[in-house]
């Protein structure tokens, strides 16, 4: 039977490095899998491309810190949406993330990227416009609930009790329905 490797052994070192690489691979895979959906969520909540990307980037930055600190969330996807929603709300009154033109310092060429072009082809404009007529809390709550978060989880992200969150969600759904009905041309 093989003896277990000591902490000074090359075998153990390889294992630790592999673990570190695994973490990076996990983070990269999570980013690639979730970034577009999370950005759609953030854009629907903020109606601001830059603010949405800032919130998404910061959510991933916090995820990186959590994972590196050995506190990997049980459900990374839900955690990302919850943190992103919380960031959007906590920054609601702030205009601090005003680096819209900073890109001019970095040579990115004049051509628009395929991603930018895709963003231009807005397919959810009606729904987004209706969401935009709701309050920010209501908007974020609906978006989080649509991702499958419970009222308690949504409440945790937006700083309300589960009961108050359910009330907010209920009113917001009806308000959204009214907004969409008006947009659809129905009298209610």
């Amino acid at each position, binding site marked *: 039977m093989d003896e277990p490797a000591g902490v000074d052994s090359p075998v153990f070192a390889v294992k630790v490095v592999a673990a570190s690489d695994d973490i990076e691979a996990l983070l990269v895979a999570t980013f690639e899998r979730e970034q577009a959906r999370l950005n759609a969520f953030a854009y629907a909540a903020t109606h601001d491309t830059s603010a949405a*990307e800032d919130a998404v*980037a910061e959510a991933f930055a916090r995820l990186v*810190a959590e994972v590196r600190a050995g506190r990997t969330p049980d459900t990374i996807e839900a955690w990302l949406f919850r943190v992103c929603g919380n960031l959007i709300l906590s920054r609601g009154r702030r*205009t601090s993330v005003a680096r819209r*033109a900073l890109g001019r*310092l970095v040579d990115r060429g004049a051509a628009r990227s395929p991603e930018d072009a895709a963003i231009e082809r807005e397919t959810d404009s009606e729904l987004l416009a209706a969401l935009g007529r709701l309050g920010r809390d209501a908007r974020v709550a609906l978006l989080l609930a649509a991702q499958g978060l419970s009222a308690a989880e949504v409440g945790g992200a937006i700083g309300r009790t589960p009961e108050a969150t359910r009330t907010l969600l209920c009113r917001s759904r009806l308000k959204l329905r009214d907004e969409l009905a008006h947009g659809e041309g129905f009298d209610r």
Partner: protein
Amino acid sequence: MSRHRDALRLAAGALDGPLGERDSRMLAAHLETCAACEVETELLTIDQDRIRSLAPRPLSAQTRVAVLADIRSTGASSSTRTWRVVPGVRQTNWLATGPSFLVLLAVLVALLVIVGIVASSRRLPPPVGPARAGMIASDLSGHIVVTDPMGQHPVQLTSGPVAVDSDPTWSPDGTRLAFIRQDQPTDVNAHLMVMNADGSAEHPIASIATVPVVTELYLPTTVPGAQLARGPLKVGPNRRVEWLDLAWSLDDRRIAFTASVDAKSSIFIADADGSGVVRISDPMIRGQHPTWAPDGRTIAFTSTAGGGRSGVYLIAPDGSGLRRVPESYRSIDPTLSFAQATWSPQGDRIAYAVVADGVPQVHISGIGGDSDVTVYAEPDAGMDSVPQWSPDGTRLAWIAATGQGGSGPIELANAEAAATVRSLPPLVQGEVVWAPDGSRVIAREEAPGWGAYRLVMIDVTTGVASAMQVSTGAAGGNDHGDGSWQRLAP
């Protein structure tokens, strides 16, 4: 409220969890008899599905790059951490391996010899860019104190009984400290001092009372016919004279600083060997906060003179080639208030803070002044802080004074890709000082119960803050000034 509306309210609530028994029965009974509400209930569910199915929006290329860089850069530093010790794992008995142990011993001895040779050649860090974090210097209740890189085990380096020492600043090679010594109790003189890293060989390289050119600061040099007087500066209780903002040149041979007489300031350069002091900026510009370009050929400074003269200026160390960046500010607003400008480690950009229309902002400007952009604008913040580049030039950090007494969180921006601005939680003041390896920053925070300030160290990755040890015992008191971090060879 109508029965229809009540039913829809219940239908909406059912999407977020089961209804009570009574509400469920009421809803079911209504939907059985009201086709319109049945449709509306279905639409509520469809709305939820539509939200969930919003078309994905891929992040922009620059944000992708920034986030992936965050992931990968953190991973690189993580992999260099100390190996973990796993409980229960047996240690290998090297002594039992016989010949292999002797081979390893020989290799170890050889390595020690090599290390000794390298150490004896006294490796120095590069003047810019990342380096190993050494000691942290600060002034504590009028004395210069250094701590280890973790902010612990303070040692007092100066102990002048009739002077106040402040503004310790490490030379880029990490071998010397410059600081200001103000004579006490009369405040009649101040000295620019230099000493070795261990506090030895302390000596003045310039003194206010013996630098004639300082007198030019308060003479009306632009008034026709005015005589330019030279001689010892007369200072006293009614004349406030200060030297501050020490900045070593990257070749460690000169120190630029701000000299201020009755709030009229100008930029001076002293030779670090004490051989001379020269003024390089016009007193009418009110220059302050000099910083050297990485190539040593240019000094940036800021002016809050008003009257259209405020701005960020560039000047050669010999006083020639004065120009202002960004040029766009010349004609826009003569009341702009500028804080210190700092060079990127690559020397191609300058970051600076400015208050425009009452809104504190952080800008990054290309040296040509044609690419000035806003990184940050926060109407609710004060801006007493200076944006500081990380040693690798990829990030900027400054303090957004949103709290009481000018305190606020440290804001962190990704300067390369402009993708992330996030706040580090503790409320701090003063200036942000990066660790030479870019892993941490230090700033001042108000010490609880003391009405004084202590230094706090913050991990920029995790945001975890820890207070540095605040007293040496010998120095007494707990009032720290801003810190300065020694650079060591990697």
